[in-house]
């Protein structure tokens, strides 16, 4: 066992530690929950944390691994959220089992977000750098605006969909029958949803995301994606199809964001498109940058800490956002400081030498 550990690549060790850490966190939280140690406030944060962890890890695939700045990640979350909610509401009578419904909603959310990812990705990935960032930002806003004028209802005749572009339609123009359910009501969003998302589903989703992202990165596909990030011209010269691998990374990232969105939508009684605006995209980007570009476990830790931070600072009401901002700045300065990195490297080396001395 020990020799096996020694022979393992350091990246493999880090991956295993990431999986173990997430499982451990889940077990501890579940035990605490069962012993009633957690306040209502904390319990309410569990599912959103899972959603944002998935968002951050998936955005890291685009920003950290592919190396392209995407500012429209919340758009895919939004697509996932609304398609997930619609699925869950439509199936509420035919499939009473909540777990099956959540899973189906997540799958539908993933598929719709992936399709949106392809539609957005094909034109956008022709661009590079700042231009790509700005166009993804625009697409994120377009998705929000489209959902803002979307009317969706469900009755025994099936799904009714209308686009309220000129603002003259409302939910009644769908012509639903008496037993019909109004699902998405334009700018009001979807309300009266079943809250069927659970922390366990969130945990499973986080694990699936980790498996998909980490395995993808450590495979032939991920290598090609990172090669494009490191040197596009060289990647082309060794026969790597740039467009294909950029699209694979971008669509995978969008699909996972869709799953996160579906879970998010199923956790609240009402969601509206304005919840998934530019600010949400930036917030997720902050998680990714703070956790370290390309560093998956970093994204997880950063998400949990930064998501919890404003809540933890609640007792300093007035100073809350100020403290939050200061902590962000300090973390950025510290993690980018070469002196501090060298200090940690020295400590690491000393520890290793001491360990080596003991063995001899």
């Amino acid at each position, binding site marked *: 066992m020990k020799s096996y550990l020694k022979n393992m690549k350091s990246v493999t060790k880090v991956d295993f530690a990431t999986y173990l850490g997430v499982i451990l966190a889940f077990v501890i939280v579940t035990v605490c929950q069962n012993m009633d140690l957690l306040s209502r406030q904390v319990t309410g944060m569990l599912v959103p944390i899972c959603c944002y962890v998935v968002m951050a890890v998936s955005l890291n695939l685009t920003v950290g691994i592919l190396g392209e700045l995407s500012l429209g990640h919340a758009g895919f979350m939004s697509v996932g959220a609304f398609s997930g909610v619609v699925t869950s509401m439509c199936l509420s009578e035919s499939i009473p089992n909540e777990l099956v419904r959540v899973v189906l909603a997540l799958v539908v959310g993933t598929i719709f977000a992936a399709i949106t990812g392809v539609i957005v990705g094909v034109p956008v990935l022709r661009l590079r750098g700042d231009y790509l960032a700005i166009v993804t930002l625009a697409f994120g806003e377009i998705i929000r605006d489209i959902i803002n004028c979307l009317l969706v209802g469900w009755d025994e005749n099936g799904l009714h969909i209308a686009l309220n572009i000129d603002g003259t339609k409302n939910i009644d123009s769908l012509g639903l029958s008496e037993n019909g359910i109004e699902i998405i009501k334009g700018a009001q969003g979807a309300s009266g949803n079943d809250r069927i998302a659970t922390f366990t589903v969130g945990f499973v989703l986080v694990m699936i995301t980790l498996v998909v992202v980490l*395995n*993808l990165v450590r495979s*032939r596909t991920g290598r090609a994606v990172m090669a494009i990030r490191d040197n596009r011209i*060289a990647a082309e010269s*060794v026969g790597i199809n740039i467009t294909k691998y950029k699209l694979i990374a971008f669509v995978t990232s969008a699909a996972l964001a869709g799953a996160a969105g579906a879970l998010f939508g199923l956790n609240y009684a009402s969601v509206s498109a304005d919840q998934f605006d530019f600010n949400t995209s930036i917030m997720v980007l902050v998680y990714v940058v703070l956790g370290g570009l*390309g560093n998956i476990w970093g994204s997880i830790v950063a998400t949990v800490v930064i998501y919890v931070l404003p809540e933890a600072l609640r007792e300093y009401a007035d100073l809350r956002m100020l403290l939050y901002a200061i902590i962000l700045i300090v973390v950025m300065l510290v993690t980018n400081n070469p002196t501090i990195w060298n200090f940690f490297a020295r400590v690491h080396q000393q520890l290793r030498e001491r360990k080596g001395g003991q063995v001899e």
Partner: protein
Amino acid sequence: MSNHLHREPTRLVPVPNPNKIPERDIDKAPILECRHLGIDFGGLTAVKDFNMAIGRTEIAGLIGPNGAGKTTVFNLLTKVYQPTRGTILLDGVDTNNMNTVQVNKAGIARTFQNIRLFNNLTVEDNVKLGFHNHIGYGMWSGIFRLPNYWKSEKVAHERAMELLSIFDMDYMARYTAGSLPYGAQRKLEIVRALATNPSLLLLDEPAAGMNPSETAELMDNIVKIRDTFGIAILLIEHDMSLVMGICEGIAVLNFGQIIAKGTPDEIKNDPVVIEAYLGKRKEG
């Protein structure tokens, strides 16, 4: 590695200039043939009427003063630029409609004048990326770690280590490419290009920035590559000791045009070449 390289010629092309191709390649079709190749950038003609044939196992050199258009020729061959005029026949096949990726699959690999490695990846991964099109598993096998993944990755690992060990770099396999010393980075770029299984290897100033002992090692390595893999090598170089030492045929480029072709001895004594490099002796 034995099956590493063996491409049968798809069409026999007559060798246009036999005395410029080494003897052992004389009865075989050339691996690369450029006919009247040219490119204009707006009103500027960067390369004009470039004709060249390279034998299957030849080490050929392309030299010329700065700005002569040598790297542009490489960029034409690898389709970074599409030629304005002329044809490139790789192993008798016209590469006219190919892009960079397809040309690489067809058998041209290159290195760059300014090193272009995947700096954040390990040395082994850099070589594996050269194998990219020879590893046969898709995205889903990778995500779900199907048997195909383990099998292909094992083969890729073994081949990468084998290739690295030929150049005594196997102990560096887990280092990050960007952290290697300069000479090793240059070597790794060549190894990565070789991993794509080329029939023609283009080296853009492989000895740039190297000291004499490193250059000597590089010369040995270039000859070793030709002998081990049985491929043709075309190199751009300013270091005349290297060019004259190992190239069998040399073409001299000046202002986008070939001004001389021949063996190293012919080139050394060609007055046109001397004039291009050193200028004309003033009359009187």
